[in-house]
């Protein structure tokens, strides 16, 4: 009887210890696509003044109660953390003469000793970063176009509306591409027949 109990205890201890060894990932990444994330995390601003934008980001972080962890003015990146539970990195880089792209990425911890999870809610980035930032810069946060991926939500536009607009734009692009393909095919056929 005693040996049975001893055996059971050993088993339980082994299971417990096994749990301790289990490797924990450093951060839980979002399941959303990279394109989707990029769209919600980026905004364009009509200014060429990178220094102003950079200081605007720092001021916004301080307004929101973050403390600054790391600043790199030459690279245009700031990492800030709020009460050891929410960590955000923002970077500002020049796109054209008169246009800056700001991108922010946030990781949240459910408990102080928990694993960080990537925040992937467009509303979070809009309400808790880009709206305060555009107020600090006195500039509108614009959708990001061109090579940087599809447009993000325009200022004041709801997420649903932005998604619908994105879908519509993708659809029109696809249709255009198909039409061009057809034209090309027709063109080669016409060339082929005497």
């Amino acid at each position: 009887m005693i040996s049975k109990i001893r055996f059971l205890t050993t088993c339980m201890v082994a299971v417990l210890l096994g749990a301790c060894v289990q490797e924990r990932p450093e951060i839980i990444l979002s399941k959303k696509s990279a394109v989707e994330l990029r769209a919600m995390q980026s905004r364009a601003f009509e200014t060429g003044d990178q220094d102003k934008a950079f200081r605007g980001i720092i001021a916004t972080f301080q307004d929101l109660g973050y403390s600054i962890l790391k600043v790199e003015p030459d690279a245009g990146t700031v990492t800030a953390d709020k009460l050891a539970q929410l960590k955000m990195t923002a970077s500002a880089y020049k796109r054209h003469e008169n246009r800056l792209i700001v991108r922010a990425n946030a990781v949240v911890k459910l408990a102080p000793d928990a694993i960080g999870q990537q925040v992937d809610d467009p509303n979070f980035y809009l309400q808790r970063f880009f709206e305060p930032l555009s107020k600090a810069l006195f500039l509108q946060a614009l959708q990001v176009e061109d090579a940087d991926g599809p447009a993000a939500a325009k200022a004041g536009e709801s997420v649903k509306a932005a998604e619908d607009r994105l879908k519509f734009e993708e659809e029109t692009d696809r249709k255009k591409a198909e039409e061009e393909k057809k034209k090309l095919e027709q063109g080669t056929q016409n060339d082929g027949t005497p």
Partner: protein
Amino acid sequence: MANFSVIFRSVVASAILGLLVSGCVSHNEIAMQIGAPPKAEEGKPTLNLRSIQTRRYKTLDEQRLLAAATQTYQDLGYGITESSIQAGVLVGSKERDAEESGQVAGSIMISLVFAAMGSVVIPTWDQSQKIVVTLTTSPVVNTTQTDVRVSFDRRLTNNHGDLWRSEVILDEKIYQEFFDKFSKSAFLEAHKL
């Protein structure tokens, strides 16, 4: 009484944390809550906090202001964790004991009361705290003045070694004391906004 309310608040906070961890609330919602701008308990808007945290100085010399701030940090026992003249940023932190005999006694009392009723509550109290101070300088557009903004927050670790509470410090006195010391070491007169 004050101790009791602190304990009550921490019990409620732990309960909420427990709920969060159990998966009732998504990580995005928690990020929304934590990411919200800090508000005073009475519901004062951010603008007030900004004016508490900011003073205006008649100089454009950011380097001088940051050097004075470094001295003030050192006078107050803070170590520098990050600084950049180009960006006008200076960050410091210090660790302090946060144990209060009243809170410890109160927490143990509660555990005893619960134990008498047959349930187990592990006594928990604040053990140490880390205070983080962030200071930024920003030249005021079209003037020869510079705004200095400072913000304090603290992260409390309990007797089990877990970080369990954190808050932005909203007490106006703390900011006033900082600026008094800072103005002296910068040899400048501070102007409220």
